[in-house]
């Protein structure tokens, strides 16, 4: 978590800036390279990506808000266990809600919904942002990060579903025979490799700073 970039603590940026920051500048998957496991695992279709993205979004916002409200009551020495418990509680709630309202999709992504509790992106946002900022910026930071994750999952899911099944959201789009390869495990790795390389290429052309993700870092999740 130490490698995750920190925002200036003194002046919390505006809501819109925080949202854009989460979706574009610090996109959890493509920029911070956090929580990659679900990004590859469930994104064989767009629908799977959407449901896991929504689950992460909900857990991120709810845990961020809980931590920021309770931040003065949490002793710094026990903060990591407390954060973990808060996340676990919200994950259990979201897990049960999804199992009740979307059972068919939940059957496919169930294990990964439970594993949200171990996603580095959520706890790193709590540590970096929610534990130091007041309620409103924290809410928008959580929303931005969650949306960034959702966008990344949908993007990867769209590429893989389009190439692997020739469809989008279940509707057949491509008239040609699909490449089964992209629906297979190996195809997920290659899709992410290509998308990341594409963003890296754009960035180098634009003359931006080198991305945090190329450092590799000791991120986990």
């Amino acid at each position, binding site marked *: 978590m130490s490698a995750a970039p920190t925002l200036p603590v003194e002046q919390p940026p505006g809501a819109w800036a925080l949202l854009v920051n989460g979706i574009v500048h610090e996109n959890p998957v493509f920029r911070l390279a956090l929580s990659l496991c679900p990004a590859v695992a469930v994104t064989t279709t767009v629908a799977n990506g959407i449901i896991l993205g929504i689950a992460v979004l909900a857990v991120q916002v709810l845990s961020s808000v809980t931590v920021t409200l309770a931040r003065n009551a949490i002793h710094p020495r026990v903060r990591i266990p407390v954060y973990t418990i808060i996340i676990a509680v919200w994950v259990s709630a979201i897990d049960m809600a999804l199992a009740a309202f979307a059972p068919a999709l939940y059957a496919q992504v169930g294990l990964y919904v439970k594993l949200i509790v171990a996603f580095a992106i959520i706890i790193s946002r709590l540590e970096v942002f929610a534990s130091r900022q007041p309620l409103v910026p924290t809410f928008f930071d959580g929303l931005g990060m969650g949306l960034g994750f959702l966008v990344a999952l949908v993007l990867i899911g769209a590429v893989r579903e389009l190439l692997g099944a020739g469809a989008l959201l279940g509707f057949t789009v491509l008239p040609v025979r699909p490449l089964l390869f992209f629906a297979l495990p190996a195809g997920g790795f290659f899709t992410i490799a290509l998308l990341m390389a594409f963003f*890296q290429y754009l960035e180098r052309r634009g003359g931006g700073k080198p991305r945090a993700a190329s450092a590799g870092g000791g991120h986990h999740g």
Partner: protein
Amino acid sequence: MADRRRPVFPPGAQALVPVLLLVLGLVFVPRLAPPVRAASAPTLKARVQPPDRVRLTFDAPVTDLAPGNFRVAEASAPDAPLTVSAVEPAAHGVTLVLASPLRRTARYDVRVADPPLRTVAAPALWMILVSVFLSSALIQNFVFTRYLGLCIFFGVSKKVGTSVGMGITFTAVMIATAAFAWVMDTWVLRPMHLGFLQVLVFIGAVACVVQFLDTMLRKTHPVLHKSFGVYLVLITTNCIILAVPLLNAQGQVSFAEAMALALGSGSGFALALFLMSCARERLELARVPQAFQGLPIAFALAGLFALAFMGFSGLDFFR
């Protein structure tokens, strides 16, 4: 007299001894005491004889040898009986010939209508354990087919030495956590219908085990702690550790199977780390296109390994 040569085993090996002893004890002690059975009740024993036969042994006479008198179903799907095409008499029982081939490592539910008897044809314990181990280590490798633990995987697979240390630490923590979580799930959560607390309890179990190992190693093996302590901290919030108890709880497996899954997943992860770090050390010398430098090329590399691991997908040790 201090022997200054390098030890044969890596320094982590001796820390595993108490863990292994505990696991072996828990696996084998319950098997020493045979289950109490009423002496007078007629008994039925069943054994699967591949490809398509089930051998039944009775100690009571069976008169009705029509195929309709016998019912065989997979224990995982007891409502879908398999077709019994013929019944052949044999010494102290019968041999059922089934229309479809049977699997040696699956459990089958066998019932007789007259006299009303019922049993389960289970494969030998070691067969289940070996197949669970191989399946979790190679066929369903956590990294390459289930995509778990990717962040750790890409984070620490840069040097071979680091990745070996990480692999050993992971396997040890995985086994300890799976044992702890299995006990909690089987003896506390399931009897008390507290399934909704699974996530909370399992993440707590991971944190407890990691904290315990950290404290114990620091006091008893300070040298070990110096080389492995760094990885322990990383482990607490890692999905691969948490996935093993969740998978075990999902399948409601026995303790031995839970241990086999933990050991298999740990070895599979260690193997993946080792392979990847070897390849990435070579990659340092390669000229990678600018856009692909860093993580993109690592992902492409993992994709190539995943392709290679697909070759294991048809592997069946006991066919």
